[in-house]
């Protein structure tokens, strides 16, 4: 019976910890013309966060939805942490439609924007069995942006910018990070 109680405490402890995994998603509603959404997440609330690890890589999935003609609504849907260091082998993005990711630091670490394919305006390469290739532009109303960022103790926030030829560069999301 003692063992069963201990087990129950363990299980409820696990649940409590997981419940504390909160995603504060602030959706900038179209109300009053406010567009920029913002949320805050603590590093310890990332799934799989290992406080004992020396280096962490943050995996973030954002769902981007087009509302109306101009608005892109961003929601953080997944935040996972992994142990280790990543090399900066960023794939190049040349499309006029892009998401720019800007991590900002409280230290004097230089801020480097990273370019990602815009999930709502994708340029896809299609292969054929005869070896021929072709490019196609695909647009969607909803898509997922998956990014990977090396964690830094001074990492304060990650800003997302949407770049389109129509609107130029617009900030669409700010993710504040709590250490």
């Amino acid at each position, binding site marked *: 019976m003692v063992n069963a109680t201990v087990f129950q405490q363990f299980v409820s402890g696990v*649940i409590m910890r997981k419940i504390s995994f909160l995603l504060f998603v602030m*959706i900038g509603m179209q109300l009053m013309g406010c567009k920029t959404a913002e949320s805050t997440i603590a590093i310890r609330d990332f799934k799989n966060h290992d406080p004992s690890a020396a280096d962490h890589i943050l995996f973030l999935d954002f769902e981007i939805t087009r509302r109306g003609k101009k608005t892109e609504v961003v929601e953080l849907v997944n935040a996972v942490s*992994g142990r*280790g260091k990543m090399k900066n*082998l960023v*794939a190049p993005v040349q499309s006029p439609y892009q998401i720019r990711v800007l991590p900002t630091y409280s230290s004097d670490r230089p801020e480097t924007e990273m370019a990602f394919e815009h999930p709502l305006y994708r340029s896809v*390469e299609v*292969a054929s069995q005869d070896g021929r290739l072709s490019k196609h532009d695909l647009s969607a109303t909803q898509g997922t942006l*998956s990014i990977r960022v090396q964690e830094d103790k001074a990492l304060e926030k990650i800003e997302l910018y949407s770049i389109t030829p129509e609107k130029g560069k617009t900030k669409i999301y700010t993710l504040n990070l709590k250490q």
Partner: protein
Amino acid sequence: MTRFFTLILFFVCFNCFSQNFKVDTIHQSGSIDKRINVVILGDGFTEAELPRFKEQARLFADFFLAYTPYNTYRNYFNFFSIPTPSKESGVSNPGTAPDAYADQPVGKKDTYYGASFGESIHRLVTVTKYQALSNVLAFNFPSYDLVVLLVNTPFYGGSGGSIAVHTLHSAANTIGVHEIGHTFSYLNDEYWAGPQYGWEAANMTAESNPELVKWKNWLNETNIGVFKHGEGEAAKWFKPTEDNCLMEFLDKPFCAVCKETTTERILQVVNPIDKMTPDTTEESVLSEDAKTFKIDLVEPEPNTLQILWSLDGKPIKSSGKEISLSMADLSANAGLLTASVFDSTHLSRHPYARGERTRMAQWKLVRSSAPQIFKLRVSDASICPGEFTMLTTSGCVGNVSWSTGETGASINVSPQQTADFTATCKTTGQPDASLKTRINVFPKPEATASNTGPYFEKATIEISASGGSSYYWTGPDNFLSQIQVSLIENATVKNSGVYEVRVVDLNGCADTARTEVKVEPILGAENPVNTLVRVSPNPAKGFVKVSTAQGGESVFTMFDMNGRKVVEKRFMLQTDINVEGKSAGLYLYKFSNGEKEISGKLLIQ
């Protein structure tokens, strides 16, 4: 003015641990941080089909590592696979695209990453469950460099982007290699995809002048030239080959320019110097003993790495992965050892390659006990009389002279007693420096040797020595002994002769001494019937019977070898003499009866 609405979402993750999967190593050439790590994932493989996934992952890794130029740099890559079981086998097929395959079954499949053929472009096979992808990578291999996802269907398809996706169709694996050409090496397509895809890349340029075009070093190669992408808007852009590159057709190999670009990219990411021994973070102290410096290399096949070792910028060795240096190699108190490694591969004709990607290992060297000083060292500070010791100087730029009158960096001395020696370093323009050392000479041990003889045969010889702590006897009849007091039982005349002992004291100093042992034969048949007296047995033990045929009183006297009288007995005709308690050895006896007298030898055992 900004207003925020906060939406708080509670995520209860009960099955987080199910995100952990076993990572299979397909090909590991080095540590994760020092190689390009390709992770292969699989979709649409059920638990039972996972062995098939692992096999397919291995086949793709083999295909990739055999593809030029990756084959040359297979040691620069690691390949892993992460098997994740899907609930259903296969891939979703909406069947809605105009190019959908007529013979492919339509339907949705519940798979791990939700891979699907395209709704509008059928061959465009992509994943749909991006969170599953992030989770598997974050939980199992967060530091991946490239991801390839294999979709369990024999129908042709695939896609590029952040991960390369392709099916198990026999022609689909070049999709993965082509897409990695984009994501890893930043290659552009060599087919004309439209004006929005025209940009400067290693294999695309607006420069058509053969003197200036970026691949000008390859223009003498077959199939390489400056080719217009097409007419109209395409005429503005040029490519290095036509119909001859993987970046244009999936059934072609990389053209020379794309091979060069890929090679340069691999060499940009992976440093061929894998390890430096000793550690370069601390200064390496050089003493008079040689110290070895070593680099471990990631070798291409064939190995085109060129190694150059230099000390303070001066080349000292032009090959080899290690070098040995001692203090004598340093011209100053400190130095800088550099191993430069350059890959001279013919895959690249990049004009500034040597300057841009010569990798270096550097060690800061310091002399032990720097700054340089005049030093005097002795091979043995304490010696025995008669031995010699070597005195050696170091650090004298000029000439060394000695108190013995000799000159030179080192001398041998053999003092008979403790003495001081002085070395003087005379360097022009500098004051003389003198160093004194004392050589301690141990006292010579005084060895003695003696024996308890002379002996008759059958006696026990006793030889003894003194003066040290160890004794090494040699003597006649191959006698050897290390016992200070040695006994030789049942002596014979062969044991006669000089015994020599080498006596060694606690300092290790030795002396020798000698003693001469005499063994005489016993004269046999000493008691004929008509002789005056009969003494028996001889040798005797316990008692001896003395008898005579002479009447009247007889006297029997015995002497030991030192001449002391040990027995005197008066008797008539015969008597027994107790010799028990007499020490073993040879005795002399004298028998007298009236005027008659005779003497002889008696051996007591």
